Structures are given as C-alpha cells and as structure tokens.
C-alpha cells in the first residue's frame, strides 16, 4: 500500500544553476525581473513550465504572504504563488518597472 509513493522518489535529475547572480527570491515587492534560468528537479522545472513560467518571461513580484512565505508573482497577467525556497532555484535579472 505504500509502494505507490515510493517509486516516485527514484533519482530525479537536478539542475544546478550556472548563473551566480540574483535569484527570484531576492526580489522586493513591486520589482520586475526576467527569468534567466530555472534549476531544481526536473519535476519542478516542468511544473513551472506548465504553469506558464518560462525562461525569458518577465515576472513581477507582487508581495509576500503575511507569514513572509510563500511569495506572489504576476506572470503573463495572472497571479502565481511560489515558496521562497523554490524561488531560490530561479536565476533572474531585474528589469525596469515599466518594461
């Protein structure tokens, strides 16, 4: 009965970030940034892609939750929430707020 969950933990390839610069988790509310690279597990990367967060996209940091985690982003005009520990796996460059 437990097997169903365990077979999913087989080695998932993890992507190490090559970019050393800013992370999505560094953004302050109101700031905008362009996604440069997405790290983490394949599952995480695919999940973000399915939800519309792609390399090259510009996202806006809306706010942090009242308990300071997770964070709310605006991507392609809709609102998406990510944990900060996951946002740390995303490399970004800031862009001007009016872009």
């Amino acid at each position, binding site marked *: 009965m437990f097997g169903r969950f365990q077979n999913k933990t087989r080695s998932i390839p993890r992507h190490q970030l090559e970019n050393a610069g800013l992370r999505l988790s560094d953004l302050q509310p109101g700031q905008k940034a362009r996604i440069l690279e997405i790290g983490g*597990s394949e599952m995480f990367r695919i999940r973000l*892609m*399915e939800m519309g967060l792609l390399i090259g996209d510009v996202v806006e940091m809306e706010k942090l*939750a009242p308990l300071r*985690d*997770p964070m709310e982003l605006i991507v392609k005009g809709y609102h*998406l929430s*990510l944990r900060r520990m996951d946002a740390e796996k995303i490399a970004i460059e800031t862009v001007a707020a009016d872009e």
Partner: protein
Amino acid sequence: MSRTQTIAVAGNPNCGKTTIFNSLTGTHQHVGNWPGVTVERKEGRYVYHEQTFKVIDLPGTYSLSTYSVEELVARDFIIKDVPDIIINVVDASNLDRNLFLTTQLIEIGRPMVIALNMMDMAQEKGLQIDTETLGVLLGAPVVPVVGRTGLGIDLLKEKIHRVQTQVSEKARHINIVYHRDIEAQIERISHVLEQGAITLPNARWVAVKLLEKDDHIWEYLVDFTEKESLKIVTAEAIDQIEKIFNDTSRSAISHARYGFVRGATQECVKTTLAEPVDYSRKIDKFLTHRLLGLPIFAFFLWVMFTVTFNVGAYPMDWIDSAVSWMINLLHTILPESMVASLIVDGMISGVGAIAVFLPNIFILFFIIALLEDSGYMARMAFIMDRVMHSLGLHGKAFIPLVMGFGCNVPAIMGTRILESRRDRILTTLINPFMSCSARLPVYILVAGAFFPTHAGTVIFAMYVTGVVAAILSGKLFSKTVLRGMSKPFVLELPPYQKPKFSSLLWHTWERGQVFIRKMGTVILVGSIIVWAFGYFPREVTLSQDYDGQTQKLKTQLTVRQHSIDEAFDASVEMQKQQYYSVLVPFESSKHFKELVGQRDSLLHETQINFQDAVASIGYARQADVMSQKWIGKLGKIIEPIVAPLGFTWREGVALITGFVAKEIVVSTYGVLFGVGADVDAENTGIIASLQQGGMTPLISIGFLVFVLLYTPCLATMAAIRRETGSWGWTTFSVVYSLLLAWLLAFGIYRIGSWLEWLT
C-alpha cells in the same frame, strides 16, 4: 439515430470547465470516482438534434504529463476510452498558459472543439481575440462562451454537432511542428514504431512522449513487438537532443510547445488597454495584506466553524428528536423480537446516530464550495502555507485540520480540496487527533470527577495533546510511509469571482450525497455488528434475583405507605380529642392541615426512594446482563490488554462501544456502573462510582488520553476508507492510533505511578 457519442471535457483548473459541463448536461449527471483513485468522475448526458451525447468531465489539469493522478486519469481516458470529441475549455483571459494543454490535446489527435470561456473577463482585461483565425491555427473550431451566464452554449452544441457529423471545415488534424533537430528524432522513433505492430492511433504522439521521457507511455506499448530496439533508439534520440539544446529533451519540447502557442496568440490577440484593471489585485490588497491578512483569515475561519457547528446544531437536534421519536414509536408498535431489535436498536439507532452529522456536513460543504468558487480558498492556502509546510503539507490542508475540532467526518471529506493524493492521505491520517466535539462529554465527565477545580485546564490539555500528536505524527508519516511525493508548491491565485448560487448548491449536493450513499452502507454494517455484540447471547442467567428484589421493594412500599396512613389517622384522632373550637370545624383547622402536609411529604419521599431503588436495581440488572453479552465478554477478554494502563474490563467495554461514537463512552459507563445511561457531569452517582471503581486521577488522565487518541469512531473510519479508497490505509490509521493511545496511556500510568504522582 446513431450510437451515443462520447465527449470528454478537458481544461486547466479554474478555467470554468465544470460550469460549462453543467451548462451542457443540466441535472442529468452522475458523480462517482475514477476507478482505483479518489478523483471525482463526473458524467452527464444531453441530446442535440436527436443525437445523444455522453459527457465526461475530466479532472482539471495544466498539462497531460503524468506527475499527478489527475493528469494520468485525464490522459488515460483520452487514450484508452477514445472519446469521439474533446471539448477543450480555455480561459480566454489567460490564453498563453491555457493553450499549453491545448497543444498536447492537439497532438493526441482526437476531433476537438475549443470553448473559449470567460470572454467577459478577457474583454475587461482589454483583450480582443480573433476566434476565426485561432480556430484555423489550432485546427479546431473556437466558440466564445461565458459559462456563468450560459452565453454561447447553444453555439457550442451546434459546433459539436457539426464536428461529429463531419461538416465542420475547421476540424482538421494539425501537427505541432518542432525545431528541425527535434523533428528529425521524432521521425526516427516513428520509423521504429511503424515496424512493430502498434495499436495506438497516433505514432507521432507516442514518439513525442518517448522523447519526453514519459515512463507511463510504455503501458500503452505492452503489445509492441520491437520494444528493445525502440528503447535503444529512444535513448539515442534523447541524448542527441540534449546535446544540441543543452537542456533536457522534455524541457526543449515544452519550450517548443510554448513557441507554437506564442505564435498563435501573437496573431490572434490584440490588447486594447495599456494597463488592464485587475480587480483581484485590489481585493487582495486587503485579503492577503501583510498585517490584515491573518486576522481576516482567522475571522473567516471562525465564521466557518461557527456556522457549521452552531447553526448545524438546530437541524441536528431535529434529526435527533425525529430518530428518538421513531425508535420509541417502533418500540411500542413492534412486538418484541430479534428482528424488531435488529431494526430498531441496531439499524435505526446506529444510522440515526450518524445521520445527525448530515447538517454539519452539508453546511461545511456549502461553505467550502463558496470558498472555492469565489477564489478565496487559494488565498487561504497562500496565507497558511508557511505553517503547513513545516508539516510537509500544502497550505490548504489547514482547513480540514481545523474543521476536525468540530467533527472529523466532514473534515476528512473536506480533504478533497487538496490536489495531491499524498497530501490527502496525510491530512486524513492525522485528522482524528484533532479532538472532535463528541469527545468533549467524556472529558467533562472524567475531568469533572477527578479534577473538579482544574477541569478546564485538563480539558484544554487534551486539545493541545491532540494537536501535538497530529503534528508529530504528520512529521513522522512524511518521513516514513508518505515520503517523497511532496510536490513543489506552485499555486495559481485565480481571479475572484462572484459565485453562482445554483452551482454552490449543486457542488454541496454532489459531495454530500456521497456521504449519504456510501457511508450509509459501511455504517449500517458496523451498527449491526455492534448491536449483535450487545444482543447475543439472548439468554443470560442473572447473578441475582432482580425481579424478586423489585417485588420485595414493592411490598416494603405498600407496608410503609400503610404505616404512614395509620400514623396519620392516629394523630388526627388524638388532636381531634384536644380540639375545642366550635367556630371552625377540625377538618379546616391549622393543626389538621399541618398533619396532612406532613403525611403527604412523607408519602412523596417514600415514593421517590422507592423509584430510585427500583431504578438502581434496573441499572444493576442492565450491567449484569451487559457483562454476560458478547460485548462484556469481549471487555473481559481485552482486560489483560488494558490492565497495564490501570483500566478494568469496564473501561475496556466503554472504549469498545466508543468506537460507534465517542460520546457513547459516557453512557456505557453509566450502564456498567449501574447508574443509568443518562449521564452528565452533574450526575454524582457516576462520579462516585468512577472513584469507587478503582480509578485514580492518574489513571483518569491516561483514560482521557486514550479516548482522545484511540481508533477513530465508526463514521470517521468510514470517511477514511472513503477518502483514501483503501482498506490498507484505514487499517493503518486504526492500528496506529490504537498503538499511540496505548503507549501514551501506558507511559502516563507507569511514569506517574513511579513518581507517585496523582495517585
């Protein structure tokens, strides 16, 4: 009339898929589960131009990969059941992301109609969509609809009809064209696929899935003859792509899909407003505000709790009275027999005891529907995620846990709001430790008896112990039996919407009726078993002559009444002789009235004493009988198991009956101690009996902890069975909570005794 056509409705979560489904089928629907998994399966029907269409509502998904049960279910249905037509519901106000799923549906290659939903919201956002061109680009007719108002549904039906009768020129199969380096590899794999016998309709789709390293695709290839060479070629192809793109092949393919989507939207969508109005963003300035967010959330939670349990208490009382009335009525009209007892004491009382939860459950489901449809549910998850994350859970799991303080049954059914099965199981397993309201009477009685001055503190400590047990068990489970499948938290915060009342009612009914149907069966069987344990063996030899004792009391009563009357007559005679007034006759005098008063109060007192004595004989008889029924014997059998905790067979029996519903522990105690089943904290008899029965304050603490933690009640167990869909998990939950309860009670008793604490 031709055969029934099957339509599958696919789309993202929050795209209004269910509304479209409801508009199409009306009330002709049936809710069940997909086989083997607890994902709701909705099926409905409608007739258009004399053609019957069977409509299946697939689970809402962002993609057709196989990371979640929902995605797997949706894909399996399309591949294996081969629906005649797919309706892809697309949120027009969020086209780019929604069309990602569309690209995957296009690749599978079934005839498709696209329902472009939420056109009103798209217009508010200032989006102009050229549906004609979009339809040509996607190879499927695009119908603009507004699900909430039903606008465009007739046109949707017409388009489906045209696609089905193959008169629509727009329904044609197109290919999503990838980068030429990927195309080359698709070509290569397709070539291998064509060599072996393949039963799948679309080799290109299989090839793409193979390149995406989709393991489940092999399940469709069981009969494929060239498996070995296919595996080798696939591995090579993936390797090549990953070298060229310096990325995983899966990622490269997804990027290409988005490329296709972007191409389509750039051509068909025009933005007329520079800065579109985002109402949800404005609302969230308050609802998820840094400082206000939590208090507002707490307030909503409080309202939810109060409405569910306080407002629900009224209909609960009505059902309770109706059931009692029915039981009494049947007891009077049915002749006493085994069948009558089975029906009345077994089935009706048992099911009636659970039926009282119906109002709670329906109210809770209504509120959950309201939270979900309005969009606030996602915000609740957003606000609470930090807390729940520390337990390895999703933010939304907070709601069923809090509801557990009221009743675990609706709370466990509420775990359906969670998307991942692992989260649902974990939340379900720890839910019974949230001390439900049925356990409160036990606390009040026992804590009141042993800690009269600190009862409140003891009861509060029970609640805290429950929460701690839930947290620690949650951590334990997520590190052991439920390891691994925790998904990254990527949650959409959908736009707020005004919920439609009819759809709220519909959702409530959909979920509530499952409780009525399925739980009815489990609970009925359980009630009959428990009844049988209390009913058999039918003949018991009483250890004392209770009838004789009652008879003796009756004789004593008559004698006593007689002597009171005699004493009264004698006194009257004596007083009368000393009486000298001629104005007032003796029978109206003060003295005479005093004498009558004395006699009446004596008679009354005697009567009361008699009734009490008869009642206690009755209770003693009941206790005697119970100890000889199977249930009493079972209590004696398990006595060695509970003896290390300082419990006697009485606690054993009380705990066993508490399995039906935990508050029954109190009334069983009453019966066993011969003070009657109608027990509350004011009943001094039970308190004295508890103390005389050998229970010490220390043992009472152990007993309370046991009651808090042990086996969830029958209804909860049925809910666990229902929501996990597995007897394995149900057994696990029962065994785990029993073990935990025993170990803690044992620890308290042993350590306490050793420290000579509270003895």
